[in-house]
């Protein structure tokens, strides 16, 4: 196992290299095909060649390879790797440090993800277990249908309705009831407040979690049903254990592998939702930054952020894989 982990860490490093390279290629091709992002800088105005060249240089896009479609631009890639190795993730197009941007944006996103994950987990485990336990009864149907109903609403619809229909009255009510600076008033603030990140990210996080929870609820239900069919559940019941104990230790515990997989995937999946959530709730986070960077062809920022995301993902995947072996002793890794 120890060797497995070492191997996985090495592989993780290789993945990172691969990811950065693929990204580099993607962004390079995008630049080669779309033309220099420097152009967007001038908006509706048409720059002279000289102006363009100057801006390109400032953006670090002056390498001639960016003009040759198909050229993988290895030179800049190697340079960038060298810089990364020294902890220098470069600057965005406007000269702001990528690490600085990430340092501001990442904590907010992580807070959002934490709430999303907790929401998922609580809803999924709670409702999924309930649905599995009362399989075929009205509770089961109710939970499944409601969750799917919520899930079918795109996240932006949920957020929109919340912001425009509920947030303002709730916020007014909370202010008048609990005072202007009360926690409750902050919860219902229509948008994020950097001074009170946890309080203001709570509702958006819950909504985002809600939107993704149906799949998770169904997943939990399905894998628990699988466990319920197991004979060991019968054994546990024959010991006279309370049903709650049986469910917890023999059903929930035995169906944890897909659940852990799901939690592992939350991170990456939530990012897509985060782009929208962060945009609509005005959270300065990785999703929004990445979105803007992608749209602006901000190569350094895109590669920098995705590299950081990749590190997190690789670590999460590794933890998940190790967790498998811990959760199901029958799983062996060569």
């Amino acid at each position, binding site marked *: 196992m120890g060797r497995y982990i070492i191997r996985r860490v090495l592989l993780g490093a290789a993945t990172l290299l691969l990811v950065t390279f693929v990204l580099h290629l993607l962004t390079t091709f995008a630049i080669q095909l779309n033309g220099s992002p420097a152009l967007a800088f001038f908006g509706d105005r048409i720059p002279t060649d000289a102006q363009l060249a100057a801006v390109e240089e400032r953006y670090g896009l002056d390498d001639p390879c960016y003009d040759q479609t198909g050229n993988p631009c290895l030179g800049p890639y190697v340079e960038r790797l060298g810089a990364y190795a020294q902890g220098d993730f470069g600057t965005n197009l406007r000269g702001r440090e990528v690490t600085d941007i990430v340092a501001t944006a990442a904590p907010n996103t992580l807070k959002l993800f934490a709430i999303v994950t907790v929401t998922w987990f609580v809803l999924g485990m709670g409702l999924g277990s309930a649905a599995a336990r009362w399989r075929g009864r009205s509770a089961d149907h109710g939970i499944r249908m409601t969750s799917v109903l919520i899930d079918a609403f795109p996240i932006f619809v949920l957020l929109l309705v919340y912001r425009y229909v509920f947030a303002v009255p709730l916020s007014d009510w909370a202010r008048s009831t609990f005072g202007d600076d009360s926690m409750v008033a902050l919860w219902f603030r229509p948008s994020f407040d950097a001074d009170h990140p946890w309080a203001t990210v709570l509702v958006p996080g819950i909504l985002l979690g809600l939107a993704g929870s149906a799949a998770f609820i169904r997943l939990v239900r399905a894998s628990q049903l699988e466990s319920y069919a*197991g*004979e*060991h559940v*019968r*054994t*546990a*019941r*024959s*010991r*006279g*254990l*309370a*049903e709650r*104990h049986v469910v917890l*230790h*023999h059903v929930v*515990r*035995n169906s944890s592998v897909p659940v852990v997989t799901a939690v592992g995937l939350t991170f990456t999946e939530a990012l897509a939702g985060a782009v929208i959530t962060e945009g609509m709730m005005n959270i300065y986070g990785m999703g929004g930054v990445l979105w803007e960077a992608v749209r602006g062809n901000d190569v350094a920022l895109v590669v920098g952020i995705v590299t950081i995301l990749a590190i997190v993902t690789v670590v999460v995947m590794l933890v998940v894989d190790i967790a498998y072996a811990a*959760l*199901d*002793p*029958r799983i062996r890794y060569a």
Partner: protein
Amino acid sequence: MEIEIQAGTEAGVPAPETAQERTVGTTLLEVSDLAVEFRTDDGTVRAVDGLSYRVEAGRTLALVGESGCGKSVSSLAVMGLLPATAHVVAGQVRYRGDDLLAMPRTRHRAHCGRHVAMVFQDALAALNPVHTVGYQLTESLRARAGMSRRESRRRAVELLDLVKVPNAAQRIDEYPHQFSGGMRQRVMIASALAMDPDVLIADEPTTALDVTVQAQVMRLLAEIQAERQMGLVLITHDLGVVAGVADDVTVMYAGRAVERSAVRDLYAAPAHPYTRSLLRSVPRLGTRDDGHDDAHDGARRGRLPVVPGRPPSPGHVPSGCPFHPRCDMARDVCATDRPPLAEVAAGRSSACHFADELLGGDRG
């Protein structure tokens, strides 16, 4: 049908066993007229049909019978653990007079493990693959008796030692798939004994064990039984084991009891043709009836005597006496009339029209 419920004496949780003494002969568990049906694609199927037996403290009742005759299903019914497609259509299961089947499920469940425990037939499937053996051994102690972690660990080692699993202290941290078939079965037994139950239903507890360990385990069960006056229901196909440990025997055929008797009487003179055929079918260690010589090439050994025909499947139980198509004594009446389980001698019952003849003939 009478249902006796001790009106609200103990809500849910049964009293600790110390409160109720076990003296030899006290009836602990009484199954009467139990019938279980399954819903299947091909209609309902009656797997157990009017089974009755009684377990007394300090005594061992052996349930023997054809494979598929409903031994396991009836035990599951006693434990209240039938699958969703099955349900009890008639009968009572009384534990010290309380009808378990008439209780709410949670109260019934509370009796399980503590008062009536069960060892399942399929040891690997019955153990949870993701928990260590040690955990499963003491799970009920920890969850129900609030035993501490350290204490339960000690107890787990004790229990595993009890069933002669080598190196118990180390192996409690292993998982079921790392155990051999026999060891798993012993783990099952140990975990059923953990709560010191009044009645233990052991469904083929030693099939995967070699005879030396089987002997150890059976002796162990006997010791525990003697010491604690536990009632034991032993489901087994091994008539040798039955002969060794049982006090009473109930022979089942096609979901119902066909003979009930004390063990010595049964072996001496079976009162039902099925029992007789069963006893005849047992291969014996000493007897090589074929008399073949050392040169194995030539003659084959003789065949084992068997009951001809296929056991009836619960869907198509023959009319009249269910055994009649395979019975060497069958007459016309057997195809039409189902014989009831009736007392044919002191302490013996048989469901055969010609039990007297059978007994008499053997005696004579």
